[in-house]
């Protein structure tokens, strides 16, 4: 078993915060496709479409038959750890701050032998389950894990570098008025968050579930209105230096497309929350989080946004809302690159229609807030950049990958 991670001590104000460093960044275009798979939580390797060989590391031609028809596809994640060593010295700025570091050689069941990071609970030789994880620089790395879950496995320091676990971390949930926001708060507490700050806009307006937020001493209710720059800045001034994870649960949703509305007032409200609100949060909290990307066991690790899958392709019934979601998706893509310098992950949790007041007339399947909350925690614990929750989100993604133009027409029905 792994030694359980202890709640980190209070910060010593005389010791400088460790500046974030990143593991080596450059990758070939072929290798970036592996990162793309890891971003979705897949274990995928290049497979030759002519001879069927599985290849590693990524390359442009098959080492067996020289075909250039290599395609990343999910492969079996099992293997055997046949050798390992513990690195005690490194000239790399990232690794030398984190030594000792365990690496080993794994023979994959699907063919290749690979160099991998090795979990502390593994002995050599042993059966392993391989995970493809994004490192702090946003690139895929291979990590060998015990086949069976061991106690406190996720607390292994090397593993923790590859995920964004909420355990012992302080999280801001930006909108606690909604069912989704409240479910996320509870799921984060259940996942071991030390503190959950819960943003509430217009605290003078009562809301369902308010009483539950008062019940847990780990919850701190804060005034936050993402449409109000002053409010966002003030909260960042208050807690931005100890916000390790930010989960943006704010979403302003109303039915209707462009011509089914006669003005831009509601669309503007949607953009104020869904797009500019996100930008305000990023501008106020992002620089503070980015500076704390290597700040010990409760370093800043993730900026999470929950957004509709219709960010990818407009859904006419909620067409204006989809437009704001598309802008939101684009903002997140930009932010992902900007936050990377601090090793802070930007995670997108894509959802289908949520089962709430505004989607009463939408046919099932609809997502329960608890399902979204579970997905947020899973994305954090897995360090998964693009998480698709529920059947609709997965279906839309699949159709979008297949043929975006066909999907566009289908969603106009």
């Amino acid at each position, binding site marked *: 078993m792994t030694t359980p991670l202890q709640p980190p001590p209070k910060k010593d104000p005389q010791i400088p915060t460790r500046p974030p460093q990143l593991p080596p960044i450059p990758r070939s275009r072929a290798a970036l496709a592996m990162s793309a798979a890891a971003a979705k939580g897949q274990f995928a390797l290049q497979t030759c479409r002519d001879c069927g060989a599985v290849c590693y590391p990524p390359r442009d031609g098959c080492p067996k038959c020289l075909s250039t028809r290599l395609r990343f596809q999910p492969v079996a994640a099992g293997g055997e750890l046949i050798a390992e060593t513990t690195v005690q010295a490194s000239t790399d700025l990232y690794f030398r701050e984190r030594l000792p570091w365990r690496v080993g050689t794994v023979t994959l069941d699907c063919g290749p032998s690979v160099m991998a990071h090795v979990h502390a609970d593994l002995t050599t030789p042993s059966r392993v389950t391989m995970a493809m994880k994004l490192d702090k620089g946003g690139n895929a790395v291979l990590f060998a894990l015990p086949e069976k879950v061991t106690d406190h496995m996720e607390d292994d320091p090397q593993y923790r570098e590859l995920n964004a676990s909420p355990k012992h971390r302080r999280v801001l949930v930006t909108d606690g008025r909604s069912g989704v926001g409240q479910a996320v708060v509870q799921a984060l507490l259940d996942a071991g968050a030390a503190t959950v700050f819960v943003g509430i806009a*217009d*605290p*003078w*307006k*009562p809301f369902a579930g308010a009483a539950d937020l008062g019940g847990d001493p780990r919850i701190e209710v804060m*005034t936050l*209105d993402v*449409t*109000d*720059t*002053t*409010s966002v800045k003030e909260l960042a001034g208050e807690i931005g230096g100890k916000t390790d994870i930010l989960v943006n649960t704010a979403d302003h949703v*109303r039915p209707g497309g462009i011509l089914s509305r006669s*003005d831009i*007032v*509601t669309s503007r*409200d949607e953009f104020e929350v869904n797009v500019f609100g996100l930008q305000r949060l990023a501008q106020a909290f992002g620089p503070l989080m980015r500076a704390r990307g290597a700040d010990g066991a409760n370093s800043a690790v993730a900026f999470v946004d929950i957004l509709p899958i219709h960010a990818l392709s407009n859904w006419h019934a909620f067409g204006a809302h989809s437009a704001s979601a598309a802008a939101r998706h684009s903002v997140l893509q930009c932010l992902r690159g900007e936050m990377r310098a601090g090793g802070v992950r930007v995670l997108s949790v894509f959802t289908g229609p949520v089962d709430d007041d505004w989607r009463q007339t939408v046919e099932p399947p609809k997502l329960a807030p608890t399902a979204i909350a579970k997905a947020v925690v899973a994305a954090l614990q897995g360090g998964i950049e693009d998480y698709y929750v529920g059947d609709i989100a997965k279906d839309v993604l699949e159709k979008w990958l297949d043929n975006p133009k066909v999907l566009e027409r289908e969603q106009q029905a």
Partner: protein
Amino acid sequence: MSSDPAGIGNADLLNLLAQGLGSGAIKVVDLTHTLSPDFPVIVLPPEFGQCQPFRMEEVSRYDHRGPGWYWNNISMSEHAGTHFDAPAHWISGRNVPNGTVDNVAPEALIGPAVVLDFSKESQADADFVMTRAHIEAWETRHGPIPPRAWVLMRTDWSKLVGTPAYVGMTADGAHSPGPDAGAIEFLIQERDITGFGTETVGTDSGQGSHLSPPYPAHYILHGHGKFGLQCLANLDQLPATGAVIIAPPLKIRQGSGSPLRVLALVP
């Protein structure tokens, strides 16, 4: 040059006012709340278009965005903060001539004010409704309301700003004091007022949608071309009679209302 019966010329009148202001004999009381993002706006059912609260985005502050100057972009509903309601704000006033803020006669924007103090009643009951009888009782103490006056309903509600009690929102709607239809009809038809002002987020009570007609102050005032002022402050610093208020809204083309600075001159 005309003069009043006391033999004071017009220029003298204005001079006297200036002297009074200069010497402090006439005090200026600010009846305006600071326009800030957290100031509440009226709450409507969410499927309706919403009143946008005040928002401010800094454009530059002596920095790389503008080294020598500080300025902001602001946005808000016409009905955010301390604000003026023009007749066109309400459907009953849609055909009133000159019913938008740009066309309001400037003479109407400066005038005598009477303050009807119902702060005790409002403190006792957040849903206090001011009726004609209440106004008549006030007049027995202070004399009749003069024509073309601004009637300001004091409730001390402005002191609740920053607390949930200001709007008093619960599952059955907002709770704050205001007038009924009879009170407003009396003020218009028998007292010929210029406008009606309150300390609450609207000229109507929090439960005003349940009165008849719904939102009687809005409906009747604006239907008769009268004006509204709401979210007023410092009414407790005004005398029951004798003050003059200055309440010009922004000159917004076809505007239904406007945030404004309301000043009172107090002897």
